[in-house]
């Protein structure tokens, strides 16, 4: 099975799910084929499987397979293809320690397809026909290795009648954003949570009222930053600043090490579209080609729905790297698959003279 064939199978699977149709193969069957490919081509993955006593040929579910920790993407190349075949390499934002994880893709086709399918469902389905986008994240030419920048550029091309960037060279263009709002067309404002915090500071209580049909998407946390704003407080402040309803503010959850993203479903619900039962702010939903499990932080054993643990992601779209990724993010997976995020595991104890692991393992995606 070639990697191109695997990529096509994943895209076909995702398209079927997005259309509400039944895919022609089961999640686990496809995932295990991806795992087989990765065991043969990602140096070290076969060792990890052997260390866990897993015989791939006998596995019936990807849940049986060990996951690659996000930290590994910093330490070694997690890729099933040669470096010469890299179509793009995404890098984490890193921390003051300068350690950045890398996620290399042999093709952007799958990433684009799944990002567009999930983004459409969460943000653009039911949106006004002529929707402009205002982006509060560095553009691709400034941050060519940012997966977020790549995704936002994709959204601009596929879903917007016009798009503008309002964060360049580290400077926020508040005046430009105000002009975009004043044009009166429905506007999607998308950016990092920290960019929104800076924007709110710059506005000093002023409003940039958006036209009906507008929405705001924010993503990312505050790890390693000097300031943290609780999610609910940020959302209220954003809704107030842009004069939009609370449900028009949507959180996105993604990371460099994954190809697929999760979203809150409140915007869908506010548009009268189907939304899961546990739809509320703080609960994120994965697309059908991704599974999320909360696992025990010490044993990595899966927890039942409602159990609080560290989050493991099984992402079909990660053909080129790791079918299963283990994070240090803490959360609860609900009965309907919603993921209630609660922050990060503390890692090694920051006691006395010890260093916190999270200081060392990299920052926000």
């Amino acid at each position: 099975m070639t990697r191109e064939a695997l990529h096509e199978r994943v895209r076909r699977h995702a398209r079927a799910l997005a259309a509400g149709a039944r895919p022609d193969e089961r999640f686990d069957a496809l995932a295990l084929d991806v795992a087989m490919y990765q065991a043969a081509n990602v140096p070290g993955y076969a060792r990890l499987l052997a260390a866990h006593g897993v015989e791939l040929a006998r596995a019936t579910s990807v849940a049986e397979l060990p996951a690659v920790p996000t930290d590994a993407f910093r330490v070694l190349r997690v890729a099933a293809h040669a470096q010469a075949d890299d179509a793009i390499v995404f890098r984490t934002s890193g921390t003051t320690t300068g350690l950045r994880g890398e996620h290399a893709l042999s093709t952007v086709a799958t990433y684009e397809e799944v990002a567009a399918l999930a983004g459409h469902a969460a943000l653009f389905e039911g949106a006004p026909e002529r929707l402009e986008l205002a982006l509060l994240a560095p553009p691709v030419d400034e941050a060519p290795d940012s997966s977020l920048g790549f995704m936002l550029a994709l959204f601009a091309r596929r879903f917007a009648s016009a798009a503008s960037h309002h964060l360049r060279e580290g400077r926020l263009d508040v005046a430009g954003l105000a002009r975009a709002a004043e044009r009166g067309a429905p506007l999607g404002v998308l950016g990092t949570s920290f960019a929104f915090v800076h924007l709110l500071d710059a506005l000093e209580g002023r409003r940039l009222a958006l036209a009906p049909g507008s929405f705001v998407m924010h993503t990312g946390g505050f790890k390693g930053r000097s300031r943290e704003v609780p999610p609910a407080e940020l959302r209220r402040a954003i809704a107030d600043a842009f004069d939009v309803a609370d449900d028009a503010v949507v959180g996105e959850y993604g990371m460099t090490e994954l190809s697929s993203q999760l979203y809150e479903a409140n915007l869908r619900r506010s548009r009268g579209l189907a939304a899961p039962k546990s739809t509320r702010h703080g609960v994120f939903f994965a697309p059908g080609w991704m599974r999320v499990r909360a696992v025990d932080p010490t044993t990595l054993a899966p927890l039942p729905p409602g159990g609080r643990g560290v989050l493991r992601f099984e992402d079909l779209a990660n053909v080129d790297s790791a079918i299963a990724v283990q994070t240090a993010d803490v959360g609860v997976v609900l009965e309907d698959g919603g993921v209630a995020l609660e922050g990060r595991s503390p890692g090694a104890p920051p006691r006395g003279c010890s260093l916190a692991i999270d200081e060392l393992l990299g920052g926000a995606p």
Partner: protein
Amino acid sequence: MSDAARERVEAVLRAAARVSAVDDALGVKARARLPDATGLSPEGVALALDLSVERSASPTELTSLLAWAGAAPRVHVVLSAGVFVAAVRALALAVAAAADVVVRPSRRDPLFAELLVEALARDAGGARVALASELTPGAGEHVHAYGRDETLDAIARRLGPEVVVRGHGTGLGLAAVGATDALDEAADALALDVALFDQRGCLSPRAAIVEGDAARVEAFAAALDAALARREALVPRGRLHESEREAMPAFRATAHLAGSLREGASWSVGAIADARALVLPPPGRNVAVLGAVDAARATRLVAPLAGLVTSVGGSAGSAFVTALTRAAPHARPARLGEMQRPALDGPVDRRRAERARLC
């Protein structure tokens, strides 16, 4: 420098000698109660008391320590948990600066500090040392704070500009093994550094950088695995913290993916010959052995974390070790086996020596 200050420091050293002695009532109390208080095994406590408690200092060391300390009307010492013997140096630095010292012990682990103050009550060399549960410095007084960088920053912000805060923050040690170093000998010495305080000290080595190829990296990892096993037999590891246990799966998986993992009942050694970045396992006797073909490569590995390195252990005269020490300019160089026994010439953490004021 002041004779009075020197006398006060020497009183602290006498107190430390009492609290670490097997035949002193305070020493007996320390050995009996510290395992519960610290989570270290009784053998781990004994090892720390025997090897890492400062009981003397040369005249040169004292001169350097007194010069660092300066003078203050009163010093408030805020101690942290993790390395109980740190209270000795902390007190020595405090009394070097002032006759009046107030000590706020770690809430989790106050015992050793309390025993030192008890010893000083009988023989303080002119110092007046008291325990307190809260930090209440007056204007112009000094605070010597030990702990996580975040804690130190919070203290400095809370106290405002009229209080001089000297912080002693988090850090880690690195071991360096040169191309011609005897691997078994280096491994044995490193195992001692790792076992002390179950690797929770700010000097404790968490990674060893080995000059050489993959075969040499694996050979050292095997030697270290054996040395840690021997050390465990003599000095069992104590209790692990929950968060240390939780951090292990990621280290194990990364080691398997990138190289190899050797794991015992209470230690682990991951070997990665060509790591792109420094790997730092959680404390609790876990070591990442990383390869570097030459000093330049080793320097690049260390560079992103150079500001956090407080100690580099290795053989004297090795160009590889010298290069690594230069890469972490504030680190104390030490021989392997002696990383947790720095000279009493000032604070352990030299990084903040240049930033005497946090606010």
